[in-house]
């Protein structure tokens, strides 16, 4: 799979995880900032404000960003820009982009912004923390806070011990990165990290939400995914905590139903076109397009019509309006 798709896939689970576990994320990843925040006051995601900046700037979209309003213990309002850099290749323009975002937001909304970068890549040595520019004695220096997820590899045991739900997100991400070329290993980790959710005693909804993240980043090839699902359902049964299994039973029924309808329509159209081609060679594109709009029972009833039609025009005349 090309790299582009890779990052797109990581993108939205990251955003969701950040939204859902924002205080936990701050406490785990940026404790030095978290201690200054008054968590008794609600934080607010400023998606619209951020979108405006991104659209105006036409900056790329290969990352997950969040702009959040928080209150400091001193009573002041503060905006945080969290930039999660998901893509694998290090980018020379990254510090500059951090600077541009910060500047654009403060310029547009007259609000000071604290910028936090989360780097998800696998390159140990890429650690940007500032943007610098200088010409003829004129100088810009912009420092931002940076967290390298890779560094958590050294603290794996602590992540496993941690009750912070964001620790699960980080573990899943690290293992997704590490097992990219070893699917068997990936399945083992997917199960191991999922199991921890139950062992740590998270409430049902957290288990489901965190599992979604795990399931999303630790994608498996079909055969291994089936094995994983079986193992998980057995585990849940044994634990008498049928959370994922029961939610997915609905998902399964929904999927089956949807697939069945699609499969029927697909085959019925295919057979009709085939029968028409047998008799009249070419089937024009418009006719084909009209068949696509019909439902399964309409298509089925046209089979006899197709077999006895004298011409394509005669057949087309009999199509439901």
């Amino acid at each position, binding site marked *: 799979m090309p790299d582009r798709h890779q990052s797109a896939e990581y993108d939205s689970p990251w955003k969701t995880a950040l939204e859902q576990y924002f205080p936990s994320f701050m406490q785990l990843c940026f404790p030095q900032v978290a201690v200054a925040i008054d968590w008794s006051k609600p934080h607010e995601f400023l998606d619209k404000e951020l979108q405006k900046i991104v659209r105006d700037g036409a900056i790329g979209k290969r990352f997950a960003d969040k702009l959040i309003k928080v209150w400091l213990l001193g009573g002041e309002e503060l905006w945080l820009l969290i930039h999660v850099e998901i893509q694998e290749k290090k980018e020379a323009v990254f510090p500059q982009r951090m600077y541009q975002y910060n500047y654009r937001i403060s310029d547009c909304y007259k609000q000071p912004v604290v910028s936090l970068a989360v780097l998800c890549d696998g390159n140990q040595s890429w650690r940007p923390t500032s943007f610098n520019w200088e010409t003829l004695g004129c100088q810009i220096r912009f420092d931002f806070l940076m967290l390298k997820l890779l560094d958590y590899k050294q603290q794996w045991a602590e992540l496993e011990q941690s009750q912070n739900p964001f620790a699960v997100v980080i573990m899943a991400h690290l293992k997704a990165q590490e097992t990219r070329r070893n699917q068997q290993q990936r399945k083992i980790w997917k199960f191991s990290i999922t199991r921890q959710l139950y062992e740590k005693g998270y409430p049902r909804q957290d288990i489901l939400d965190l599992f979604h993240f795990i399931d999303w980043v630790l994608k498996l090839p079909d055969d291994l995914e089936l094995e994983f699902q079986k193992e998980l359902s057995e585990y849940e049964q044994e634990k008498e905590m049928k959370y994922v299994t029961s939610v997915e039973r609905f998902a399964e029924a929904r*999927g089956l139903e949807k*697939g069945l*309808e*699609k*499969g029927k*329509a*697909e*085959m*019925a159209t295919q057979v009709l076109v085939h029968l028409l081609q047998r008799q009249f060679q070419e089937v024009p594109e418009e006719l084909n397009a009209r068949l696509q709009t019909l439902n*399964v029972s309409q298509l089925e009833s046209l089979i006899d019509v197709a077999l006895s039609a004298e011409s394509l025009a005669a057949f087309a005349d009999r199509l439901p309006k």
Partner: protein
Amino acid sequence: MKYMTNVERFAEARGFEKGQAEVAIKVLMRLLQRQFNEVPEEVQTRLQTLSVGQLEGLIDMALSAESLAAFVDRLPQAKPIELEA
């Protein structure tokens, strides 16, 4: 969270094949009935053991078969074993 879980994705793929097979069998039975009137229940049972690909291949055979017996004679063996989910 809005995305399709792997379970749902798998189920949809299974449903898709099932739907395709159902319609293919229905069409085949219809084609045979048109030509040979009575078609015994066993023919349908035999068809149900075949894969979508095999069923597709039978449509032309059903249209050109000179007798029902000739059609049944040329039916392939049951589909290879597939992963049950």
